[in-house]
């Protein structure tokens, strides 16, 4: 029976390595046939913005890896609509990789997963 892993992104990118290092865990666990959910809440929603250009600061752009999640079989990519709204962000500013969700659905995913990682 395959185990499930929820990965919660709750921090904005580039001020820390959290997003990038969580992505590496997601891709590795997917290779082990775990059922992965990527959940974006709080300032984690900023991870999904289009047009990120950290290269102007000589930092690696990990945002394109979010586009590869599906390729790795990670189909549950949920972003909190409440947290987007609170930050005055519209879905049109996000890369088309996530489904608009809500706290209730995200909490249910966390509750049902065998493992949950944050960083």
């Amino acid at each position, binding site marked *: 029976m395959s185990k499930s892993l929820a990965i919660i992104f709750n921090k904005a990118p580039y001020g820390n390595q959290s997003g990038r290092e969580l992505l590496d865990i997601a891709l590795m666990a997917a290779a082990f046939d775990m059922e992965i959910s990527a959940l974006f809440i709080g300032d984690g929603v900023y991870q999904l913005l289009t047009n990120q250009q950290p290269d102007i600061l000589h930092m690696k752009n990990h945002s394109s890896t979010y586009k590869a999640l599906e390729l790795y079989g990670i189909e549950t990519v949920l972003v909190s609509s409440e947290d987007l709204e609170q930050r005055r962000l519209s879905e049109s500013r996000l890369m088309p990789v996530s489904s608009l969700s809500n706290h209730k659905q*995200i909490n249910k995913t*966390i509750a049902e997963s065998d493992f949950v990682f*944050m960083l």
Partner: protein
Amino acid sequence: MKTLYILNNPQLFEQCTLAMGTQDALLLIEDAVVLSEQQSSDENHFVLEEDLIARGLNSGSSWNKKNYNEFVALTLEYNKSVSWL
């Protein structure tokens, strides 16, 4: 799945408790133990006693205290733990 939430950052209290369900528990550790003097308690709310003692906060907290032995037991009593970082 009954989940033990482990919180060490007091700034993330609201976000963490928002994710919790009725059957889940919260354990405050490290810097988050200060919340046990600020927030009202609940029957599923615990605070790590050693981290309170370390900070001189042991007498002020009304929260249900758990020591490290009980911390280990909690992680086994609940189906999984989530360290909310």
